[in-house]
């Protein structure tokens, strides 16, 4: 039910984004959703005069996703976030945190993916002692 949704293949992505850049759209953000079947939906939300336009593409973990930071520098934070939390392979980001922007080395890998090993349990904290 998203208005103005264009679905495209991954190899058309860069073309489509540079088209949006040429038409002076502002990048709002990117969203990533795990479809629970190994594929991920990647949304690029654009805005012009308070109208939202969305470009959607489908990717897998193996795909090499080109970064759009050469067109929209402001995408570097969200690309790093998706790279880290979903474990997607986004290449050539302008400021690359090496997949460790939010988490540390001993945290779980790609915690936002479906079935990531997250346990909800009563933890041993000093409060109970």
């Amino acid at each position: 039910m998203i208005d103005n949704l264009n679905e495209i293949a991954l190899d058309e992505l860069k073309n489509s984004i540079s088209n949006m850049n040429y038409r002076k759209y502002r990048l709002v953000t990117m969203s990533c959703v795990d479809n629970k079947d190994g594929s991920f939906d990647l949304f690029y939300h654009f805005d012009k005069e308070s109208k939202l336009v969305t470009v959607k593409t489908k990717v897998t973990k193996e795909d090499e996703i080109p970064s759009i930071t050469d067109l929209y520098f402001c995408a570097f934070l969200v690309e790093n976030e998706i790279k880290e939390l979903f474990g997607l392979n986004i290449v050539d980001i302008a400021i690359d945190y090496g997949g460790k922007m939010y988490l540390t080395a001993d945290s779980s890998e790609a915690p936002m993916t479906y079935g990531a090993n997250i346990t909800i349990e009563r933890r041993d904290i000093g409060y109970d002692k």
Partner: protein
Amino acid sequence: MINSEQVPRSTVPFGPQHPVLPEPIHIKLILEDEKIVEAIPAIGYVHRGLEKLTEKKDMYKSIFILERICGICSFMHALCYCQGLENLMEIDVPERAKYLRVIWGELHRTHSHLLWLGLFADAFGFESLFYECWKIREKILDIMEATSGARVIISTNTIGGTRRDINSDMLEHIKKTTYEIEEALAYIDKVFFDDNTVLVRTKGVGVLSKKDAYLLGAVGPTGRGSGLPQDLRTTNYAAYGDLDFEPIYETDGDCYARCKVRIRELYQSQKLLRQAIDQMPEGEYAVKVTQKPEGEVVSRVEQPRGECMYYIRGNGTDILERVRVRTPTFANIPALVHMLPGHQLCDLPVLVLSIDPCISCTER
């Protein structure tokens, strides 16, 4: 003159614990003498993983989780989420609830902007001004406590309306308070607009051109200070369609302009509050929700700091499949990274605060 190539570079860490910032953000600064040449933000000190938590709780509990993304604009987060789900499930919200949302929303904007003005004054060392701003802000917090029972996180939104009503005595009191706030503001805005010491620290500092602001995706007062008249309240969510207002913007693009936008928005908020109270209809303030969300939706509202976007996907059950939150500070950090190089180290606190950073929003 020393050739700039001969100046040795040094690295200075700014944060995560810093007296000027109430929140932890770390910025790695590369300096040449006292001049910043490169700034790399390192975030993650407040990352909790709330988006994942919403996939484990049902959609009503998620309201309380999402409100705690940020304590300052908690009402707006709940508003954005509830409006998204209402659009998805095609629920007609009662008119009175829409006006109540405007009232609480504008109260939140007023308290957030006053809070920011205080912190901004503190950033350039004007402590008595900080106290003045926060003194005015307490009036708003008293109203919040009277109408909802809590000072900061008021939790009055729910899917299909609001959880509480405001009675007519209280509405009269709010109206009276808006005049008091305008009076108090008239006293302090002279300092922000005309005082020499303030002007020296803010005018011409951190200039962000209109083109840069647009390309870097700056939103809210940061973008509006650079001449971008983008205000999502003009998309007429809640009851904003019935109210009379124009987006406020300035064209200079420096810290002074961003400050001016926020002070003018404070006056605008008081006018909106009075309009909303005068036009508010009687009636129900919530409807019963029986539908389940299915499909995806994007919802956007204008927070005090700028545009907030929620992407929601439901699968026909109470538990949502995905809630993705894009908060205004997340969009403004690239603008900050762009602004910093070329400024003196002493201007850094003013610059960082001029985008009104909310780190717990950014990292969720």
